[in-house]
């Protein structure tokens, strides 16, 4: 039961086999979606189901290149713009804020931390109608800006709280050494502190991106035109209209997962850091 206990050779093999079995069971839904996306519509409804397509069909992907009522690649691009926009806002605002909280004991600091902690736990429902009215008045309704501005509210508190720990762990001497070398407060922050906190900044950027990428409520409520909507809202719309066109739907699902999978493959260690130090679920 203890942590990090070494195992005998036989047990090692046994555990590896069990682990792979667990992996296959738990990730089966993802595999199933992928296989469905490369089957023909007819084969999808076939009984018994096939676990690898008899006829390889890439038309579900190719059909999206022609513009229909739902252009998957355009929606994908919209999602990218929205997610990168929200990520940039979150990082630019959170980096100095977390530095201020970690390094300066100003009045009301604890309340500020509390504000960020509580906003993290907010349900979107509370913000939807007021933001809807606000964006209409500001003429941001039905533009990507509405989703960008709303999605950043998820990334900011998360990023502030994570980065606060990174900045707090940097010893004061390091900052003082920078002053001796002729830096002022601002240049010390830019040239010394930010580079040290870089892994933390990456974690924040990734999570702010992922939160925005996964958003449905904001994108669906604030953007009405199908051509401007993020891919999640586009899929939801498509489901409403052609509920059982599973070949297309599964292809949309796979395309939506691609950026997440790429981030996952190349930046896994940052994701685990983010999940454990922030203890946050979207």
């Amino acid at each position, binding site marked *: *039961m203890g*942590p*990090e206990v070494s*195992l005998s050779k036989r047990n090692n093999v046994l*555990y*590896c086999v069990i*682990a*792979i079995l667990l*992996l296959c069971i*738990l990730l089966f*839904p993802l595999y*199933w979606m992928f296989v469905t996306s490369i089957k023909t519509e007819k084969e999808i*409804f076939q009984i*018994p189901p096939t676990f690898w397509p008899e006829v390889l069909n890439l038309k579900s992907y190719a059909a999206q290149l022609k513009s229909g009522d739902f252009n998957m690649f355009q929606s994908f691009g919209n999602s990218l713009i929205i997610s990168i926009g929200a990520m940039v*806002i979150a990082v630019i*605002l*959170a980096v*100095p804020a977390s*530095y*201020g*909280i970690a390094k*300066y004991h*100003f*009045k009301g*600091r604890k309340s*500020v931390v509390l504000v960020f902690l509580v*906003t993290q736990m907010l*349900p*979107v*429902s*509370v*913000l*939807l*109608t007021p*933001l809807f009215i*606000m964006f209409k*008045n500001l003429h941001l309704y039905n533009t990507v800006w509405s989703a960008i501005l*709303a999605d950043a*509210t998820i990334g*900011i508190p998360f990023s*502030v709280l994570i980065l606060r720990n990174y900045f707090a762990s940097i010893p004061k001497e390091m900052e003082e050494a920078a002053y001796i070398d002729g830096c002022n407060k601002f240049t010390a922050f830019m040239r010394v502190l930010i580079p040290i906190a870089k892994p933390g900044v990456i974690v924040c950027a990734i999570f702010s991106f*992922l939160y925005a990428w*996964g958003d*449905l409520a904001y994108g669906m*409520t604030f953007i009405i035109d199908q051509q401007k909507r993020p891919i*999640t809202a586009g899929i*939801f719309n498509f*489901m409403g209209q052609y509920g059982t066109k*599973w070949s297309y*739907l*599964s292809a949309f699902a796979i395309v*939506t997962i691609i950026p*997440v999978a790429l981030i*996952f493959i190349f930046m*896994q260690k940052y994701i*685990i850091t983010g*999940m*454990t130090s922030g203890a946050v*679920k*979207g």
Partner: protein
Amino acid sequence: MNRVKKFFKYDNVGIFFVLPALLYMIIFVGYPIISNFILSFQDVTVKTLLSDVKEFVGLRNYIELFKQDNILTTSLWNTLIFTVACLVFQFIIGFALAVFFNKKFAISKPIRGLLMMPWMIPITVTGLIFKFMFGTDVGIINYFLKGLGLITENIDWLTNTATAMPAVIFANIWIGIPFNMILISTGLSTIPTELYESASIDGANKFQAFRKITLPLLRPTIESVLILGFIYTFKVYDLVYVMTSGGPVNSTQMLSTYSYKLSFEMFKYSKGAAVANILFVILFFVSLFYLKFTYSQEEA
């Protein structure tokens, strides 16, 4: 005096670093929360939504929600049942997986990493996947259950009032397992190995060691996993909206989906705001409880 002045000045600089982020949150979160409360005491329709003059009706929206229809009570119950069921299963499975992957075998780390996937993919996609898998004729779940001899007729999971909730819970557990697993794994890795070694020298068996060492030392982790899990599960929205939209006949209607339906499908903005506020108040108190709890731990 001079030093006091200097100290004060130095620390005050911090506010300027925080101010932009704080202002952003006040504009796009703080102000909406307040205006949502005001909205819930008014009677706002499509006509009056953007005008400055809105009729004040006091508590009428809340009273009507509680008195006239029972959908609010249904949603409240559904949300609670959904949350508790998800928490129990994802915690037990997540805990078991954490203990398993804590063993040092060749591929434990990479496989545990791969198991994070369900937590990361957009919930809209997860909803789509499970809607497909729980399909009546096309769904693989019915096929598996038939193969195992558990059912003879296909179950219409998402269109039947009795089975829609279990199906939605099942999908959410799939998302929640990695979250529970990784947090408990981190907790487990902080327990020093020596404790188990000395326990086994003292003649304790594995079960005793688990009960007397693992569980007590893991208590803070377990408590925060459960409270955070409660908060995040209670505000579930996307998954249910994609899989069932709260149906059939409100059998999976949650506070969040009901609020959305009232505001953006029935255009009863004020009633929708009132339901959102009920959800908000519940979560706010749970969050305060959580914060008090973590602060007292930090001090201890």
